[in-house]
């Protein structure tokens, strides 16, 4: 075939003589390597053969016959190439190697400033470049959308788990935290806190005062607990504190006492003094215990009612004995259920 025709069909072909010297190079491979670096040079000096591997000299390559080649430019940018070797005249006198970029096409078009004219009309390179670019644009648009949706989902979840009056976790948020702790088989304590005399504030000073007191109490509870603890508002004047990593009953008693003292400090609402207190029932979950969330909350309630019955403004730690005695005051526990 005449070389002009070959240049159109295979713009990245090389013709070699029997000793492996390059006789002729197609226009695109010549553009990539510079023509003076090709014609007259030895093929294996310009290209580093990566497959087949066991090729020491050009004779080995000749003997290997027609097969797929993987190569790299020895010169920078060491572009990877694919190739195939044939003997167009049926003997060893002339060897033809046709090259292609394969997957390195993306870098190659940039590195060598290739244009449509550098590829054979039948080559799918342009379509491939088009597709990569189109898909990348579509993917990045999808990615941005997903980011926005994820942000919105997180905000919605956050909202669903938050008590809007106080900014504390709500009952749903509390349940998520408790189930996470139970899954981790962690040691933690749950304090059920009921405000005492809160109804009097609401009744005498109105709901706005009540809301103000709840907000203040919420802030105080957060202040009196540790960073890793969680405070939730689970009902009108009911709060739950989850304390993680508790080592001793002493710590629980101390924190409970602090909360009660803080809650008892008079709150000023528009010149009116609001005085309330708190009763606390606490359950301490030891590692290895596998209670249900409902059991924990029910035990905490039993302890809370023991505090209420004993005169309020105190904390009771749950023990199974309490449940027996609380059965005697059954109606009160039922009221809360």
């Amino acid at each position, binding site marked *: 075939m005449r070389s002009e025709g070959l240049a159109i069909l295979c713009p990245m072909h090389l013709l070699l003589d029997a000793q492996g010297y390059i006789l002729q190079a197609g226009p695109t491979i010549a553009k990539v390597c510079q023509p003076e670096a090709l014609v007259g040079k030895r093929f294996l000096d310009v290209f580093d053969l990566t497959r087949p591997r066991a090729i020491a000299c050009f004779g080995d390559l000749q003997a290997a016959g027609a097969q797929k080649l993987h190569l790299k430019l020895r010169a920078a940018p060491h572009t990877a190439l694919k190739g195939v070797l044939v003997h167009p005249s049926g003997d060893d006198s002339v060897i033809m190697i046709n090259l292609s970029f394969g997957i390195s096409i993306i870098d190659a078009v940039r590195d060598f400033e*290739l*244009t*449509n004219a550098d590829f054979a009309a039948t080559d799918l390179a342009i379509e491939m470049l*088009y*597709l990569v670019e189109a898909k*990348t*644009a579509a993917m990045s*648009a999808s990615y941005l959308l997903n980011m926005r949706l994820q942000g919105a989902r997180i905000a919605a979840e956050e909202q669903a788990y938050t008590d809007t009056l106080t900014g504390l976790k709500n009952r749903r948020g509390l349940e998520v935290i408790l189930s996470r702790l139970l899954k981790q088989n962690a040691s933690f304590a749950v304090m059920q806190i009921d405000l005492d005399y809160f109804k009097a504030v609401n009744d005498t000073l109105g709901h706005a005062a009540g809301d103000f007191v709840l907000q203040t109490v919420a802030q105080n509870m957060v202040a009196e607990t540790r960073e890793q603890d969680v405070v939730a508002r689970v009902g009108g004047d009911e709060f739950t504190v989850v304390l993680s990593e508790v080592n001793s009953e002493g710590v629980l008693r101390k924190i409970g006492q602090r909360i009660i003292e803080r809650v008892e400090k008079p709150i000023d609402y528009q010149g009116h003094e609001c005085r309330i207190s708190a009763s606390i029932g606490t359950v301490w979950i030891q590692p290895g215990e596998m209670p249900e969330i409902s059991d924990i909350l029910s035990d905490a309630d039993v302890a809370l009612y023991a505090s209420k019955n004993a005169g309020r403004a105190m904390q009771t730690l749950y023990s199974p004995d309490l449940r027996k005695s609380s059965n005697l005051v059954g109606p009160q526990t039922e009221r809360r259920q």
Partner: protein
Amino acid sequence: MHGLVNRSFQLFVSDTFGREVWERSTQVAGISFVDFEGMLTYKETYTPRLIEGVSTILDRPAAEVLEDFGTFIVSHPKFEAVRRLLRFGGVDFVDFLHSLDDLDDRVRLALKNLNLPNAALHAAGENQFLLLCENTINGYCHVMIGVLRAMADDYGALVLLEHRGTQEDKEVVFITVVESNFAEGRHFSLGGGAYADAI
């Protein structure tokens, strides 16, 4: 309709005429939200209602608005990806015109759910062509005219475009390429896309 169409139209209207015009257009169109997402799918009826809404508020014929829209999506820097993808179609403007035959297939390859009407190029004499657009999307032909006008600029070609109405439910655009290399045109390199950095 693919969200990309509505989203692009939204960007065109807000960018060209202001956000307020867009917001009023969505109201006139009876759509309860304002912002479209490119990668979601919306009711087919939204798009024609939005076009009508914009046309009403601006008191300009829909055909004119759509033509400007076509020019916008090719020439605005935010839509560089569209220009580049179209430029893959051919080395010069006439080559590009021939690639329009495959445009709907190419677009579908990139975005499976974006079904553009088919367009077919017919030679109509020396440097003259007829582009026959299926009218499955009302007004698509006018968007194409805007796209062709902007692409001619991009290639540096001098062309005349004329909408010749509808023939057998195909809209006809008459194209005369007065000069292929009239001006410098804008630079395009195969490896210049954003993906070169993304990879």
